[in-house]
């Protein structure tokens, strides 16, 4: 096993064990923090497929995060307020079932990613960065003025949605659920990176000419990669909304997009466990630096600068070495 793998396994194991220890010690807040880290990591795993494999620098992944969040908020709020979503062609009252909400979140974010991708992937480089950013802003402003679902105030869901067989209001059970989803998606991302599709998408980043010359369409590969990426981030959005029992336009803001990207850079671009390390470190920094200084953003900024300038390959790269695993 490569050092990177070992490091990844250790981090993932720690992320699973810390909440268990906290549960035993009666520290539910630590579990909440770990849940937050797991969900943010999931969002970043999604972005890492577009960014790390496909080289698509999307500064608009908050769009999908927000769509996932609102999928949860809208479905659950109709149940909460006893106002059916629609009565024709059949009565639909909304839903408080997590699996159904996840399905909707994934499908709607995938659809959004498809539409955005169709336009944005006509361009590349800086144009792509800015267009994805602008689409995010478009959704942000729309969500602020969409008064039917709370506008800027957002939507509060008083009771966390349900999952068959689990009491999701119990922090450790909800953590277990998010952790399981994260592990499954990580496994999926691992397989995807090595699958024919992952190979082709990676080649489309490194040498689009070559990909064309062997008869594959780099644009279509990127579009599919972008859609998968958006769908995963959308799923993370639905979980994040359930963690907070609340959604608001902040989920769509461009700072959110920036932060998701920060997790990846902190951890290491294109590395399987990079997003997990990045999100865990970010959540810890937010927690401890936030306690130490009112101006903790300065320190966060400096740390980020240092990583970008001096630790290329992120923290995983720093510990496990620059070269990525090849097999």
């Amino acid at each position: 096993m490569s050092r990177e793998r070992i490091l990844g396994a250790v981090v993932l194991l720690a992320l699973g064990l810390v909440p268990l220890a906290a549960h035993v010690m009666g520290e539910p807040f630590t579990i909440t923090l770990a849940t937050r880290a797991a969900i943010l990591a999931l969002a970043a795993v999604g972005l890492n497929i577009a960014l790390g494999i496909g080289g698509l620098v999307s500064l608009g992944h908050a769009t999908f995060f927000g769509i996932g969040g609102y999928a949860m908020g809208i479905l659950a709020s109709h149940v909460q307020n006893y106002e059916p979503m629609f009565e024709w062609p059949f009565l639909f009252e909304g839903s408080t079932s997590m699996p159904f909400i996840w399905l909707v979140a994934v499908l709607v974010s995938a659809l959004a990613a498809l539409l955005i991708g169709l336009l944005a992937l006509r361009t590349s480089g800086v144009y792509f960065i800015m267009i994805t950013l602008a689409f995010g802003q478009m959704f942000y402003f729309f969500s602020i003025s969409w008064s039917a679902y709370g506008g800027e105030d957002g939507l509060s869901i008083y009771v966390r949605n349900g999952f068959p067989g689990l009491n999701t209001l119990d922090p450790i059970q909800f953590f277990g659920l998010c952790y399981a989803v994260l592990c499954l998606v990580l496994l999926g991302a691992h397989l995807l990176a090595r699958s024919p599709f992952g190979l082709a998408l990676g080649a489309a980043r490194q040498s689009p000419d070559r990909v064309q010359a062997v008869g594959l369409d780099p644009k279509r590969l990127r579009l599919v990669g972008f859609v998968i990426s958006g769908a995963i981030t959308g799923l993370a959005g639905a979980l994040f909304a359930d963690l907070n029992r609340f959604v608001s336009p902040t989920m769509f803001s461009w700072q959110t997009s920036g932060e998701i990207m920060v997790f990846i850079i902190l951890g290491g671009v294109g590395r399987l466990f990079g997003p997990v390390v990045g999100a865990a470190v970010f959540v810890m920094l937010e927690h401890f630096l936030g306690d130490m200084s009112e101006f903790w953003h300065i320190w966060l900024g400096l740390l980020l600068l240092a990583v970008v300038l001096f630790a290329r390959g992120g923290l995983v790269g720093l510990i496990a070495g620059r070269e990525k695993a090849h097999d």
Partner: protein
Amino acid sequence: MTPILIAEQVLNGLQSGVMLFLMAAGLTLIFGVMGLINLAHGSLYMVGAFAAAATAAVTGSFVLALVAALAAAAAAGALVERLVIRRLYDRDHLDQVLATFALILIFSEGTRWIFGSFPLYLDIPEALSGPVTLPGGIQYPLYRLFIIGMGLVVAALLFWLIARTRLGIRIRAGENDREMIAALGVDIARLYTLVFALGAALAGLAGALVGAIQSVQVGMGEPVLILAFVVIVIGGIGSIEGALVGAILVGLTDTLGGIFLPQIFGLFMEPAAATQTGAALASMAIYVLMAAVLAWKPTGLFGAKS
């Protein structure tokens, strides 16, 4: 809807467009010459506004405030270029986005640390305050006319600088072929610092000019930054002409959309619903404009073919 009101709104759109141009010109210049995407450009706008407000508070002079804004933003730009940006030129866009995102955090919280959390005061100078009557009986604030004038003068200077001066020749050479200007013996490091400081100064000037009629506060730069991005994407990244055309298009769309969309919806909707729907769509109008331009020309109106 009277012709006077329409004319006034067009002037407003023009004024906001001209200010956007000052921001967008710096961004597009920096991208064109150095290939750098700079998210922290909005922070330089904020630096300009704060420097102007602080100087005006001490000296009471608006002219000195503008000078201070230019100087502070240029100095901050040059400093940041030397310390950080310089290391990013040969990096990919991702690293640039991240590093300049980090700079935003540092600038914003740093400004709050120095100046506190409350907005600062910066006012229009006595000589430029109040409205004037334009031909056709349009009452229009003198200061906004001044802003339009300043913006156009700066735009003209910029075009002259790029077309006619030695620096301009180097800038154009740098846009076309980086190795060639190195071969010509131009000190690239100095040229880059200069261009970055120039872009920063333009942003600082915009911040100071706008600061007098808006609120000088932490975080004021980011909304403008995103608009400026939309502008240069529409105009074509790297093109100063594109930035000018894009800025005015965005300024007009944003202003006129905000006024007319609710009224259009008012023709067939309840007034309250119409204002809300119209306002919601108006806030998205420039992004729709951008999407339309890109669907038609993926590299913007004046962009080089990729």
